[in-house]
């Protein structure tokens, strides 16, 4: 899931415990029952029941004993993994089978617990971290996918501009000398219009894949928001109301004002389009301090002082299954010709290029809020802090060495430039 935050901080973590030994299952349940963040434990005693339960969905993590009546060894883990590759799994094993547990971690288990060797707090932490790590890994996959699409788009767009140049140029020549009423003139005009639209799309693609990064300078946040409000107001008819909430004039960011303006514009237009029958668009900006916990859900984001820019609507909300894909390029809910599916992808890309993050909060039937987190410090400091932060965050969260090293490496690779 890219940045959807539908897992609330204090909502219970739903666990499926797959364990054929009833006493062991009760012990685990008892051990974690005193954890500050509540767990909801469901218990099944065979692989076949577990697979049925996993298929029904709604789980946050599974804890699986590899020795079950209907399955033994690593095959048990593989079957659970195959049932839902995105459901984090923690393997449970006896002291004599740690090799097997490590093999499971190699195959994608988030962690393992050795029976009788852990306190309730340790197990609870392993489960919580398994859930968080899975989420971070999914965000990472998302950002890698965006990067790949961006590189592809950039390469294609360059060729495309050459082709469009030829199409537009030769069409113009072909039109010369044709009377305006000539049907050929009209046809060629339509071809030119289409080529112009294609050129606009190519430009957007190039914006999206721009690899030379933002041109940062000191930017007044209040002025930025006021400028956007001035631009957006004429686009909102009588049906929509625009509300803005500003920080004091002294609040500044080291950022590319043009890019941020573009981001807020895209979000405002989306907000309007999410409320075809009218409603309120809210642009809000404030300063926040992100703690280690607060930013643990965002890849590449480190604790510190941030400015948030958010755009909210009172629309229909975004269904959970769409939230997972909404940041991907070319994903759109708008009618053909009305949206390219690049608007949000661009906002996401701009946020990450600034060392920040885009968070989506959406409740169906109530509305959606898109929040851009931007670090307040200058670029140089951001890079240093990110490099340290990427190490600190997952290592602190890891119980197994293999998983920590690989995730930390991956996180370092995706630091914003």
């Amino acid at each position, binding site marked *: 899931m890219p940045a959807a935050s539908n897992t609330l901080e204090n909502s219970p973590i739903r666990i499926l415990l797959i364990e054929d030994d009833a006493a062991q299952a009760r012990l685990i349940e008892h051990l974690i029952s005193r954890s500050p963040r509540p767990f909801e434990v469901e218990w099944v005693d065979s692989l076949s029941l577990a697979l049925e339960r996993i298929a029904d969905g709604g789980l946050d993590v599974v804890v699986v004993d590899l020795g079950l009546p209907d399955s033994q060894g690593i095959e048990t883990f593989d079957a659970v993994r195959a049932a839902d590759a995105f459901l984090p799994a923690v393997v449970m094993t006896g002291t004599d089978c740690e090799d097997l547990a490590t093999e499971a971690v190699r195959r994608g288990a988030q962690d393992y617990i050795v029976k009788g060797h852990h306190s309730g707090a340790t197990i609870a932490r392993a489960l919580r971290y398994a859930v968080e790590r899975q989420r971070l890994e999914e965000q990472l996959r998302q950002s890698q996918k965006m990067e790949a699409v961006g590189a592809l788009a*950039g390469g294609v*767009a*360059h*060729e*495309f*501009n*050459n082709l*469009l*140049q*030829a199409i*537009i*140029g*030769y069409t113009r*020549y072909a039109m010369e000398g044709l009377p305006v009423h000539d049907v050929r003139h009209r046809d060629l005009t339509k071809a030119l219009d289409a*080529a112009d639209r294609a*050129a606009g799309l190519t*430009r957007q693609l*190039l*914006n999206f894949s*721009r*690899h*030379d*990064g933002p*041109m940062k300078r000191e930017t007044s946040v209040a002025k930025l928001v006021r400028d956007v409000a001035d631009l957006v107001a004429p686009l909102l008819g009588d049906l929509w109301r625009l509300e803005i909430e500003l920080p004091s004039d002294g609040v500044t960011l080291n950022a590319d004002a043009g890019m941020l303006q573009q981001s807020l514009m895209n979000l405002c237009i989306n907000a309007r389009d999410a409320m075809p029958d009218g409603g309120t668009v809210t642009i809000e900006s404030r300063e926040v301090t992100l703690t280690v916990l607060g930013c643990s859900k965002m890849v590449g984001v480190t604790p510190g002082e941030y400015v948030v820019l958010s755009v909210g609507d009172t629309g229909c909300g975004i269904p959970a299954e769409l939230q997972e894909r909404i940041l991907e390029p070319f994903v759109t809910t708008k009618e053909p010709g009305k949206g390219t599916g690049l608007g949000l992808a661009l906002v996401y890309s701009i946020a990450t290029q600034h060392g920040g993050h885009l968070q989506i909060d959406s409740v169906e039937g109530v509305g959606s809020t898109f929040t851009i987190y931007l670090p307040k410090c200058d670029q140089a400091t951001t890079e240093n802090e990110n490099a340290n932060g990427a190490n600190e965050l997952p290592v602190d969260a890891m119980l197994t060495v293999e998983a920590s090293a690989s995730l930390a490496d991956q996180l370092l690779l995706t630091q914003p430039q």
Partner: protein
Amino acid sequence: MNDSPFQVLVVDDEAAVRELTIRALDRAGFECSPAINGEQALKMLEMKDYDAVVTDLRMPNLHGHALAVDLLARENRPLIYVVTGIVQPKLAKDLLSRGVDDIFFKPVDHAMLAVKIAARLESQPNRLVAAK
């Protein structure tokens, strides 16, 4: 001052784009020569002087940026116009701050390009290209 047509070197690896640019500039009264990459352009610049060079950026055998930098270092340089399909503000800023005369992003309105080049050349008191 002399009345011979302005000499323009058009550098682009894409044949159709090169031909279009030349057609538009020919029509505006320039005399154009084509080059298919930066390397060929440098060779042609050794053989003869040009009033202006219109170059693409991304090309095999010497990128347009390198060509522009080479020309900017010359004492009596031709006007340099960059035409590019890559929108990179940092690159554009770099080229302009080094002294490139203008940058156009593809798809380019060639008639406008021709007008701009002509206006600049006509306002220059001394032509680089000697009268024949």
